[in-house]
């Protein structure tokens, strides 16, 4: 079917080039991050290895057509849920396969490396959501408030299952990613503004209310609503890190010092002076900010923005609603990761354990993102094919 076009025409070179740039940035930043000699392993080679694995995943995924993913989506979603369920019941004792790390039972510790099922689940969730929404629209071509509410109910149903498992771990960061994906899908799914706006408004009000209560009504939150003190500490150390400099605030202060002292032009490759814990994973942006300054840090943000722009452009080209929803979900996922990760290093958002996509060191994160971009590569690669499939309808309209 797609013999009429050459491979080079159908391959998304732009996206591949963006990936290459990210790879270079990632390796450079990690190389600088480990100069304190704090780690036994060389994370540069390891990250290159993960990039290789990621490339393999993306390459392999191009061989399947989006329609096949559409068919597979519920199975993948089910598999992801199964993994999460397995994680929940897996033995979590010391030295066992699912031993909690930093208080969260989020990883399988396998001989090949640590695997975080929620990273894969994000992509599977996007697929399932897209499939569900597109199916809904096929069934109810005439939309009304009623069908919109039905759709909304279904969307939340699909969201609820993985969310319940992830909150059990507990992993607030990942849970928020699922919310972000859902929000983007809800918007793109065409649900009436009459529904979206009140919900978004009340969600914002609830968030602001909780924040206000965390500051002024801690007792109520703690005793009546069952929040734990460490969650307040996270808020306080975010808003006023210097008062908590010896404990929770330390991480943020060192990150602020690192990035702030980078000034406009930065300190150059491996010119890093400030030691920021976890600077090869979640706090890798502090290395970029310190060594390459405002220019370098902004360039990285712009590159991410360019990636989003590219994905948005692709989304608008897609004719199949399923693909549109998948792309929107992926955009939301990447955006939220970038926003939260960079935001937390510059005191814009509180600290949560979310990596910077494609740049932070980490196998699960790399593979999860590769799965997502693999879908994008596949859609682009097989794009022409279903332009033909929809040809007659479109032509008549045009």
């Amino acid at each position: 079917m797609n013999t009429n076009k050459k491979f080079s025409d159908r391959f998304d070179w732009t996206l591949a080039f963006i990936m290459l740039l990210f790879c270079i940035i990632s390796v450079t930043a990690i190389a600088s991050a480990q100069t304190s000699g704090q780690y036994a392993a060389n994370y540069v080679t390891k990250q290159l290895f993960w990039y290789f694995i990621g490339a393999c995943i993306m390459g392999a995924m191009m061989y399947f057509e989006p329609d096949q993913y559409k068919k597979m989506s519920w199975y993948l979603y089910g598999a992801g849920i199964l993994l999460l369920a397995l994680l929940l019941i897996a033995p979590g004792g010391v030295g066992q396969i699912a031993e909690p790390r930093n208080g969260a039972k989020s990883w399988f510790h396998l001989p090949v490396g640590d695997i975080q099922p929620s990273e894969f689940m994000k992509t599977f969730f996007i697929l399932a959501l897209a499939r569900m929404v597109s199916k809904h629209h096929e069934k109810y071509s005439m939309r009304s408030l009623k069908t919109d509410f039905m759709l909304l109910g279904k969307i939340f149903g699909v969201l609820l299952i993985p969310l319940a498992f992830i909150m059990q771990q507990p992993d607030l960061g990942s849970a928020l990613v699922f919310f972000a994906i859902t929000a983007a899908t809800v918007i793109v799914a065409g649900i009436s503004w009459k529904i979206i706006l009140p919900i978004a408004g009340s969600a914002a009000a609830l968030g602001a209310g909780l924040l206000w209560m965390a500051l002024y009504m801690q007792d109520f939150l703690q005793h009546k609503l069952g929040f734990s003190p460490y969650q307040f500490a996270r808020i306080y150390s975010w808003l006023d890190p210097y008062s908590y400099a010896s404990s929770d605030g330390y991480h943020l202060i060192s990150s602020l010092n690192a990035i702030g002292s980078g000034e406009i032009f930065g300190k150059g490759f491996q010119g890093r002076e400030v030691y920021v814990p976890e600077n090869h994973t979640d706090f890798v942006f502090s290395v970029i900010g310190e060594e390459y300054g405002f220019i370098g840090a902004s360039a990285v943000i712009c590159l991410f923005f360019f990636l989003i722009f590219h994905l948005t452009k692709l989304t608008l080209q897609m004719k199949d609603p399923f693909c549109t929803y998948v792309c929107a979900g992926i955009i939301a996922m990447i955006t939220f990761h970038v926003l939260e990760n960079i935001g937390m290093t510059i005191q814009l958002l509180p600290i949560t354990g979310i990596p910077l996509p494609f740049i932070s060191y980490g196998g699960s994160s790399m593979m999860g993102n590769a799965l997502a971009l693999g879908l994008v590569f596949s859609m682009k690669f097989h794009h022409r094919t279903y332009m033909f499939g929809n040809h007659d309808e479109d032509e008549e309209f045009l």
Partner: protein
Amino acid sequence: MRKNPSKKKRAASVKAKQRANLSFRMNILFFSIFLLFSMLILRLGYMQIVKGEDYVRELARTDEVTVNSSVPRGRIYDRQGRVLVDNEPKNAITYTKLQSTTTKDMLDVANKLAKLIKMDTKPITDRDKRDFWITLNKEKAYAKVSEKEQQDINNAPDLEQKEKQAKLDQLVRDRITNDELRELTKKDLQVLAIYRLMAAGYYLSPQIIKSDNVTNKEFAIVSENLSKLPGVNTTTDWARVKKSALSILGSTTTPREGIPKNLVDYYLARDYSRNDRVGKSYIEQQYEEILQGQKAVVKNATNGKGQVVDTETTSEGSPGKELILTIDSELQESVDKIVEEQLLFAKSQGGSSLLDRAFLVMMNPNTGEVLSMVGKKLETDDKGKMTVNDYAIGTFTSAYEVGSVIKPATLLTGYSLNAITPNDVFIDEPIKIAGTQPKKSIFNPSGSIPMDGLTALERSSNVYMFKTAMKIAGVNYVPNAGLRVTLEDFTKIRNSYAQFGLGVKTGIDLPGEFEGFKGNETISGKLLDLVIGQYDTFTPLQLAQFVSTIANGGKRIQPHLAKEIREPSVDGKTLGPIVTELGPTILNTIDNSKTEIDYVKNGMHRVYFGSQGTGASYFRDAKFDAAGKTGTAEAVYYGPNKSAYGTQTLSITHVGYAPYDNPEIAYAVVVPWVTTGTNYTAINNIIARKAVDKYFEIQKKNTEKAKQKVGEKIQKPITKEQIDEEDAQKIDAQ
């Protein structure tokens, strides 16, 4: 057919509408993302451009770190200004590492330094060698662990990053062969000896690399090359040197031992460092705060990178204050020798298998100043050779049945409880109580001798004391009948003894004082044993306090070893100015009239000078007037020799004071378990007599000297050899 296209059209128009809607919504999404990303960039711009300089300043901002450097500890002198514990300055080479110092920096310095000084390589452990080998042969070392094993460790789920590294290192260490360790040359070991100490130091705190046997040449060469040896410094360290064998002086920890593990919090709260040397026993421990001194405080300002940018001395520090003891070391050494000789003599006699110790305490009964504190202990070393060791601490940490020496206290107890009065006459006769052996005085096995309190003391009547006890208990003696005594009677007598310091802490300024044991049986026989010193146990120091109380007219005075606290000597020749003088502390006054006390004193005088006095044969010819009391206790052995537990032994004791009218000294002698038989030489009395003679001899000499001398000179420590020499001269003169 018409419908069809329109339907199609409508469907298409719906689709088109949906598409338009979709792109509108995608645009909204994209625009929101654009806004959010702009926020990131705005915030970055604010931080890095607007506030960037502030953050740079924040990094350059200095943290001040306070480092204490050691000062000499206060010296300890005897009452004549003779040095007992001194500090010897030692040349020392130190190394101070900074937060920014790397392993490589330290290795470089160690390599350079190893060429200049010679280190003792003995303290190097096998582990040190293995670690060093890894440092030198990093690649070869880690090649010993296969990729797979490294991976296994890295993937071990339960390990923190640090633990993983530690596990890996352990694996490498285990696999280094002895052949490979032998690759370390002598030169390498020298470097290692330095490097291991450097690595062990705390940041910014000078770590001593070498302080023993630093030759002048080494010191000079290192001093010349300091500029090439970053972190290295040449300085003066202090070694604590004891000039006296006296065990009560105690000891200090070495800098390597640091502050005692069980008191870490106590000392750290008082600004000590972990590697400080502190007093760990007796005087050194008791007066730690005074002797320690104020350390010099240097503030090191470090920047955000851990480099020292400025150093400022905030306090110069001052050496520890000096302590003048009440001990007269000349007297101490002399009486020490007397006790030792007598102990060895008694040990050479028959029946002395359990004899292993003797004590003498001599103190000023008016001020509580302890003039000498002698304890001698015979110990057999590994080779079966007997040695005489100092056991002065035993005078207040060990207690014994003391026998008749407490009879003066018994009489005064009877008087104060209004049970008897002076001049009361009782008949000394064997006391027969149902169910026990007859109890009698040693001098009177079967007769009936009426006597008053004076004679009772002079001849050491047990029966007079028994009858006193019965009066106190308010029971009448009926031969062969039982005696009804209550716990209250024991308590009454013990409370009264406590007024003399018997069975309570004397309050001496040394840690670890023991009160003695109190028997817990309350049968009548034990009450009779109690009043002749054969039940509760007392320490030699308690005896000295008790006799002082009688000697000074009824005031229980706290014995103390510290006489004065002085500022450090300025010139090393005269003592520094006095900071505090430790005067007498009266703990309590006994509940007796002067008449009663004088009556007992008189009785004690007759012990020495009366026709039937138990101590008369030793004191009758004395050139001084004095009073005392001898004692013999039938004691059941519970000493160090466990196999002999329960053996019947005799312990002999002696208390007294001199001169009689205006007492200058009060003394107590205790020789526990002198014999397992019945015959013994009364070395208790011999020691007492010789010690008092010695006191007056030295006193006379000192008074003559005092006339010639002006000022308070620091004297050289007195040695045993000097005492021996003087004694030998005396014998020659005779």
